[in-house]
Structures are given as C-alpha cells and as structure tokens.
C-alpha cells in the first residue's frame, strides 16, 4: 500500500490542468457552472476541441486513437475538466467504444469507431422497456431473423438523448429458450431506420432528456450483431463494468458542491442571516467530507485487481454516488430558499437566451433537486445495488 501520487502522475496532473483550463469556451463554461442543461452543439463543440489534442476518448487505447491513459490519468483528466468548467463527457463514448473494440468485427470497428470522438455519431442505449426496469433480463423487444436481417418489434423507454442520436445499441430478445438472459442479443442500428419512432418524455424538471423508442417491423442486417446471437448479456455485463467510474458521479457531485459554495457566498453577500447560513455551511462540510472519501473509494476501485474479492465493487460506488447526488442536489434546493419557488424551464433548458426571474443560479436550484431524483433509479436502483452488495459480501464477512 502506497498512498502517494507518483511523480509521473503529478507531472501529468499539472500538465493536464493547465491545458484543459485554457481550452474550455467561455459560453459553455458559464452554462456548465450555472447548472443549465447543455445543448447538443455544446457537447459536440467540446468533444471536437478535445479531439484536436487526442483527448476526446480518454478510456480508449492508443491503437484505436485514444490517449492510452492509465486509470489514474483518467481520474486526473476528469478532475482537470471539472476544475476548468468543462462539460461532463457523454458516457456513451466510453461505453460503446470499448464494446466495439473488444467484441466488434473489423468491419464494425472500421465503420463505427471514427464517428464517436467528435460525436458526429451520437449513440444512445436501448435497454429498459416499460415492463423491464430493474428486471432487465425480462425484456421483450423481439428481433426475429428473416434471412440476413432481423425484424424488430417492441418498445424501449428512458432512452437518453435518443432524439439527438443517429445510432443506437440495444438489447433485443432473439430466443425464449433457457434462462431469460440467454436469449438476448446486442444489436446496432441507425435511428433513421424505417419503423423506428422516437417520442419525447419530459421529466419532473421540465427537461427533455429521455424518450420512448418504438419499433415497428424495423429491419436490421445481421452483421449489426455484436459478438453473436444470444450473446448480448455478456456484452451488457462488460458495459456495466466500463460504466464503473462514470457511475460514481464524482464530477457531477463536485460541480453541484462548487455551485452550492458559490450560492452560499452570494447569499452571505445578500445579507441572509448567519443562523440560516451556518446550517448550510455544516451541510456543505459534511457533503464535502463524504465526497472526498468517495473519490478515494473510486481510486480504490480503479486500482483493484478484477478478481480481488476484498476490493469494493462498483455497487458501492453507485450507492455512495447516488447518496451524494441526492444530498447535494437537495442542499441546492434548500439554499435556493423562497427564490426557488420561481422556475423558468426554458432558461434552464438553454432554449432561450433570456435571464430567468432571479437569475440562472437561483433558477437552477429546485430544478436540480428534481433532476437528481433520478439518481437512485438509473443504472440499477438503490435497492438492486443493496441486494448485490449483500450477495457479494455476506459470506466473505461471515467467514472472518
């Protein structure tokens, strides 16, 4: 056990902090720091800026055009992006990329990898279905093989950014034999395929991020299968692993905590009573403490050998990460005070350039609370994570 950063990592950290700080466009930075929703072009612009330096795909190895960073370097890169007010990276970059690199055919790699770094190709993930949330393996969107094509019928739901995407990777049912997991196939498709319809779902905070996607006789060539028919669950599990660091939500929690500190300073200047602010100050301290520990848990997870039973698993990260996202977004709402009663959804969504009644900062407070109510639901509910942790740990502990 050696708890110090190597000198190479220190040098990398100093370099990347300096570079990233000079690269983030001011307008994007402002929206990021105000917790406004970014526009599609904001994400694309930032990815293109990163791409120039070869940093658009931090998790990709050099052979596929990635920077080939170590896990610790990725952590340091993400920290630098946070500090500079950069947008968070679209998770799918680090998800579909490694999947194709690991399981894809040469043709799939050749065709799909180049469009990912700049988000020229924007991918969405077709997993959940109306009847299959926590119990994902029960999914029923059916792909029936006809010659060299699959005909897909069914429905996906909670599909993030389906309306911005031109590609989708999805799980479909290709067999009813055996355990439900055994009849699932991982499939790629383009969003303009006839028979595919996207319907927006608006969230509690008025945002439009997720969608329903309907499949009516959608026809996809068999070469769009990744790994092989009925092998989809294996790919899905690999992806879950790739999501590990993303799932910790460190960057988002830090962003909100930074926002909370800024708001606290503004309220102090505005003359809010110190008895009120002291309570917030304590809450900020406690969240900051837990968040620091959470970052160290992330590093421990990153450092762990894949087969080490004693290492904390991704479920810990998800659980603590959710707890932090929920708490810090709640803190923001409380900090917002009466001003949080007013809400201009259009200003928050970046659809208009006008300033909402009490400014962008206060406009974001209650909305952020609403937005992060999703954190205990996405990527496996809190209940599912606790089930997993119990299963993973109880016997090992009982044996000690």
């Amino acid at each position, binding site marked *: 056990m050696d708890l110090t950063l190597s000198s190479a990592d220190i040098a990398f950290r100093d370099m990347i902090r300096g570079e990233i700080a000079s690269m983030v466009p001011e307008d994007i930075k402002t929206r990021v720091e105000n917790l406004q929703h970014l526009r599609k072009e904001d994400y694309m612009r930032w990815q293109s800026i990163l791409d120039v330096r070869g940093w658009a795909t931090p998790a990709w190895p050099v052979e596929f055009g990635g920077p080939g960073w170590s896990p610790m370097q990725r952590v340091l890169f993400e920290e630098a992006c946070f500090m500079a007010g950069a947008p968070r990276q679209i998770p799918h970059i680090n998800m579909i990329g490694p999947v194709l690199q690991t399981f894809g055919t040469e043709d799939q790699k050749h065709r799909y990898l180049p469009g990912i770094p700049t988000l020229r190709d924007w991918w969405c993930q077709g997993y*959940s279905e109306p*009847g*299959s*949330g*926590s*119990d994902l393996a*029960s999914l029923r969107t059916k792909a029936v093989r006809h010659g060299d094509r699959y005909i897909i019928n069914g429905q996906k*739901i*909670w599909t993030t950014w389906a309306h911005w995407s031109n590609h989708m990777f999805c799980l479909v049912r290709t067999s009813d034999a055996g355990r439900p997991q055994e009849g699932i196939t991982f499939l790629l498709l383009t969003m303009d395929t006839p028979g595919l319809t996207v319907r927006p*779902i*608006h*969230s*509690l905070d*008025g945002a439009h991020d*997720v969608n329903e996607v309907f499949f009516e006789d959608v026809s996809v060539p068999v070469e769009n299968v990744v790994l092989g028919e009925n092998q989809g669950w294996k790919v899905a599990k690999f992806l879950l692993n790739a999501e590990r660091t993303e799932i910790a939500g460190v960057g988002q929690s830090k962003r909100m905590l930074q926002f909370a500190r800024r708001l606290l300073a503004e*309220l102090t200047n*505005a*003359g*809010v*009573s110190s*008895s*009120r602010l002291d*309570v917030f100050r304590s809450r900020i301290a406690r969240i900051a403490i837990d968040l620091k520990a959470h970052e160290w848990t992330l590093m421990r997870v990153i450092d762990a050998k894949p087969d080490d039973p004693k290492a904390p698993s991704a479920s810990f990260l998800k659980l603590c990460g959710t707890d932090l996202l929920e708490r810090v977004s709640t803190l923001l*709402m*409380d900090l917002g*005070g*009466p*001003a*949080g*009663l*007013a*809400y*201009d959804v259009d200003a928050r969504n970046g659809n208009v350039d006008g300033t909402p*009644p*009490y400014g962008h900062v*206060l406009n974001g407070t*209650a909305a952020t*609370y*609403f937005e992060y*109510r*999703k954190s*205990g*639901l996405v990527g496996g*509910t*809190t*209940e599912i994570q*606790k089930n997993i942790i119990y299963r993973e740990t109880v016997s090992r502990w009982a044996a000690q």
Partner: protein
Amino acid sequence: MNFDLSDDQRALVDTVERFARSAAAKRQSTSPVGAASEDAVLRWEQMVELGVAALLIGENNGGVGLGAAEAVLVSEALGQSLAQEPFVTAGVLAPKLLELSTSDGLREKYLRGVAEGRVRIALASDESVHEFDLFSVSTRAEVQNDRIVVTGRKELVVDGAMATHFAITARDANGLNLFLVAAVQPGVMVTPVRGLDGGWMARIELECVEAEGPLFREAAGLDGLECAVDHATVAICGEALGLMNRMIALTASYLQTRHQFGKAIGTFQALQHRFAEMVTLAEQARSGTLMAAAALASEDAEVRKADVSAAKSLVGRNGRAVLEGAIQLHGGIGITDEYELSRYIRRMIEIEKTWGDVSYHEARFARVTDSR
C-alpha cells in the same frame, strides 16, 4: 377532543371533494401565465358558489364562523385534486387579516366583498427572495397631500396575479404596518412569475401608489399580520396532507400492480418498508397539522407560533420524504411529467417554500420555545 368528522364536516368535505375532482377545478401547470391567473379567478368564483369564501369569517361579520379544523379539511380535500389555490389566500389569509384588523372602517368596507368573492386580496409582504421574513420591510408609506402613498417592491406574492387588491407591508412614521392598495391603478406594476408547478405568483412594484390604511393600530399590527399568516400556513399544511394522501395512494396501487422478477414489486420487503415509512410520516404530519389548527385558537401567541411552526416544518420535512419515497417506489415513471405524481411532487415543494421553509420554521420554533 375528538377526531371523527361531524356530519356537517363530512358534508362539507364531500362537497369540496366533488368540486375538486371536477376537471374545471384543476390547476394546469402548463397554462401560460396570463391564462393561469384567469383560471384562478374562475376557480375562485366557483368556490364562492360552494360557500367556501365565507366559511371562516365570523358570524358577527356575516360569515359561517367555522374554524381552523374546517380550513384544514377543505384545503386537504382541494389539495387531493390539486385544486387548492386560491382558497388559502382568498378564503383564509385575506378574511383573517381583515377580521384581525383594528380598523373597523376597512373591515366593513372590504369584508363583505371578500366573502362574496368580488374582492380578492393578496398579501404582498416579502422583499427578499433569499429568506422568508415578514418583518424585513423597506417599503415606505407616507402622507402626501392628505393621502397615504406607498412605494416599494414586493416579491413572490402568492396569487398576486389574480388579486384585485394587495395588502402591503410598509413602514410609516410609527413603524411597520399594513395598507390596502387597489391592483389596477397608476403606479402599480404586476409581473407574473411562473412557479415550480406553474403557480401564479407575482412581483409587485409600487411607485407612489395611493393606499388605504393602516390596518392596525401600532403594536397590534405585527401580531395580527403574523396570526393571519399562521392561519394561512396551517391551511397549506392541510393542502399538503391532501397531496401526501394522493402520493401514497398512487404508490400503493403501483406496488400492487407493477411486476418485476415475476411478482408484484409490493412483495419486496425493502419496498414495503419504504411504503410503511411514507404512511407513518404522513400520519405524523397530520398529527402536527391538527395540533397547529388547535393552537390557532390559543390566546397565547407563543403557543400559536410554536405549534404552527412545528406543523409547517414537519409537513415540509415529511412531505419531502413522502415524495422521495413515491419516486423511488415508482421508478422512472415517478419522475415523468406526464404522470399525475409529478404535479403533486412539484406542488409539495411549492408549499414547502411558501411562508417559511423547514429551516425558517424550526428556527422560529426554537426561538419561541427556548425560553419556556
């Protein structure tokens, strides 16, 4: 003491529930701001026909003379269908303010109009948007050419966009007091502000506007104002109970109908326990609200303040836990705008932030009870 509804109370609740369930009564969160305030006026006129406007006005003032318990029951019934506004302001706050006023003239001039729904008075008190404080006021009332004129700016005036008059807190030579201002007259600017759930608050700017008043003799004013707001606060606590009822009911049926892993999700113990916590928190909020309703009748202002603040903070805190439980037990559908639950959630947060949040009321409770 007795917690069962009397026959009269049962009949009142049934009437209001029937009204609230009708589509016309429901507030639409998608209405544009202007239309929203027209909706509110319309809804209030319908409520007036039900007799709700004069419910709390004393019999000596020509009203029905019912008490805080009934106000809670009515609010709860309205809240259950998201039809509460503007009962709390027009049916509780305004009549209480006029009844508590020491100015016989103003009471006589306006109370009948209020009871008949013609006069809709909104309280314009807040100046800071960062912290609720009834008494932090810089708006001035001065005598100019024998007339009282008021100048200042008021924020987040609840139901402000539908008011015919504003009760304005302002400082005159003798200190803080309240003045009545007609909404439509030169120098008054009303800017509707869209709320979390599409409620209609307003910013009110007054530039040398003619006013009537003051409503209170010095010294009497502060407690009269606070007391009227306390009445309205208990009424929105009642509304919150209605919201919680509905959130719990939606969650209960979802638990019984939604299936995952081959069985109803309500068979999972962790979800059962979360539901049990929601129900328990709602019961506790109900107990607190009834306690506060009882305390409104107390002659001891400190008892009233303590119990009202206890209830409001409890309702805010527990209401939030209930909504968070409802979301977690629903999963994705729970945070979907289209689904009914979302409206209850957003309105719950509006209530929490209206007339003092949890932190404000816990501090007020501590202040009042510390010395006891």
